[in-house]
């Protein structure tokens, strides 16, 4: 594998202009959508099959140090998890990891079973009715294979979205958190930067100004496949009990034993 690429989204720099969201739509030719009334500036409420980059507008009463309303902005995207629930779930092998460490869906292989949709801990994958396939951020696969950065990072006017090698970006991000803390943002924290943390680290990681749940992010996302072993054992156990019951009732009825 080549050196892992990453996107670092520093939410403290986001001004909510949505240049990233528009650039993503244009480059990936995602098409029109009917806007949604979400009660605020955010559109849409969640990722869709035509919205891979989504700027979240979050109003948090009392979120500022002086008790005022905090207006938090965050440009959200597929996390390209090192241990990706969607990839593990896909039964066709349509979801694959590129040599850069990103996670992509091969549109020619996906058959639209939708298991990945329910297996992403962040609700990123969306089903497209017209193609019948699953859609999500590709990390601009075509661009990164031609020496360009992702369209969203390119368009961002404040460098809130940065693109580069993962190890370098993590270093930068750590320094940035220290600086913000010194400035009084006591809840400033990195989300997904730690490769030893949840999901093996996220290749699109974030700097947040409040706890993850404020941004609609799980505090400690886990691989959905974690239950397979226990569940399978439980179901084998119930098989034995039911099997025994059926066996007993046939024994009773058969009386003289097998094939009497």
């Amino acid at each position, binding site marked *: 594998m080549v050196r892992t690429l990453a996107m670092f989204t520093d939410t403290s720099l986001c001004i909510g202009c949505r240049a990233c969201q528009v650039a993503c739509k244009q480059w990936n030719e995602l098409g029109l959508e009917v806007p949604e009334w979400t009660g605020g500036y955010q559109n849409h409420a969640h990722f869709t099959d035509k919205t891979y980059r989504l700027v979240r507008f979050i109003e948090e009463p009392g979120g500022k140090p002086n008790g005022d309303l905090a207006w938090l902005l965050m440009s959200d995207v597929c996390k390209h998890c090192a241990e990706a629930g969607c990839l593990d779930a896909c039964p066709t092998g349509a979801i694959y990891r590129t040599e850069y460490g990103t996670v992509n869906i091969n549109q020619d292989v996906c058959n639209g*079973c*939708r298991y990945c949709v329910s*297996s*992403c801990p962040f609700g990123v994958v969306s089903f497209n009715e017209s193609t019948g396939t699953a859609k999500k951020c590709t990390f601009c696969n075509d661009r990164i294979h031609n020496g360009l950065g992702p369209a969203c990072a390119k368009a961002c006017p404040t460098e809130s979205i940065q693109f580069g090698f993962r190890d370098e970006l993590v270093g930068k991000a750590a320094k940035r958190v220290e600086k913000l803390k010194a400035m009084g943002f006591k809840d400033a924290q990195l989300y997904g930067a730690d490769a030893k943390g949840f999901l093996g680290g996220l290749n699109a990681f974030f700097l947040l100004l409040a706890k993850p749940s404020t941004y609609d992010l799980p505090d400690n996302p886990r691989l959905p496949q974690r239950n397979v072993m226990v569940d399978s054992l439980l179901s084998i156990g*119930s*098989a034995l009990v039911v099997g025994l*019951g059926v066996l007993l009732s046939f*024994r009773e009825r058969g009386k003289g034993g097998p094939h009497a």
Partner: protein
Amino acid sequence: MPKPPHWELMIVWYFFLGGIAGGAYFTAAIADNFGGARDRGVARAGYLLSLPLVAVCGLLLIADLGVPTRFLNMMRTLKVWDPMSIGAWIVGVFGLFTFVSSALSLSSSPSHAALRRKIGLVGIFFGFFLASYTGVLLSNSAMPFSAGEGWGKLKHADRYSMLVELLLLAALIAALGAAARPLVSGHFATLFWGGLIGLGLLLPLALDLLGTRARALGALAAALVLIGGFVLRYVVLMSVQA
């Protein structure tokens, strides 16, 4: 926030028919191997019932895909830890078993019968798998409903399994805790308590315990259990995604 996959009525039917197919084969194979001469008919009926049911299951699964013509892509990989991948394979493999067992059950030769019994014992495994992996599948998603497997069970008009089912449902609700709320007191509560627990379990159990000498009562109990099985799958699948 995790997203629901929008698996709807077609998948409810698939879970339901898959459960019956697995259960029918399971019962047939046990009756075939351990039952007496009187149980031959049960065995044959079970085998012959499971074949068309699995076929319908396969068609339902394919029809529910976004691109049905690509259903063979499921056969590109086999992921042993992935319930969706295993499930697709199981439908195919179990389908083969039901086909062979059904064909053999039409023959009266003793050597065919011996072969059929052996095949049945292996097929049981796949049948049970088909009937129960769906529970593992549902609990292994990012949706907030991740309790242990407890509902993907077989449907027999049999008091042992009804008792086991009541116990498992109680365990399921206890294990789910707050996550069970949409099931037991939400939008689906009436269906859950009335349709599943009342009509689908308690009533047939009572009929069964009272004695099913009367054939009509026995048939009623069996039909009620089947309805309960359908309701169970419906409320579980829909409330997970609500």
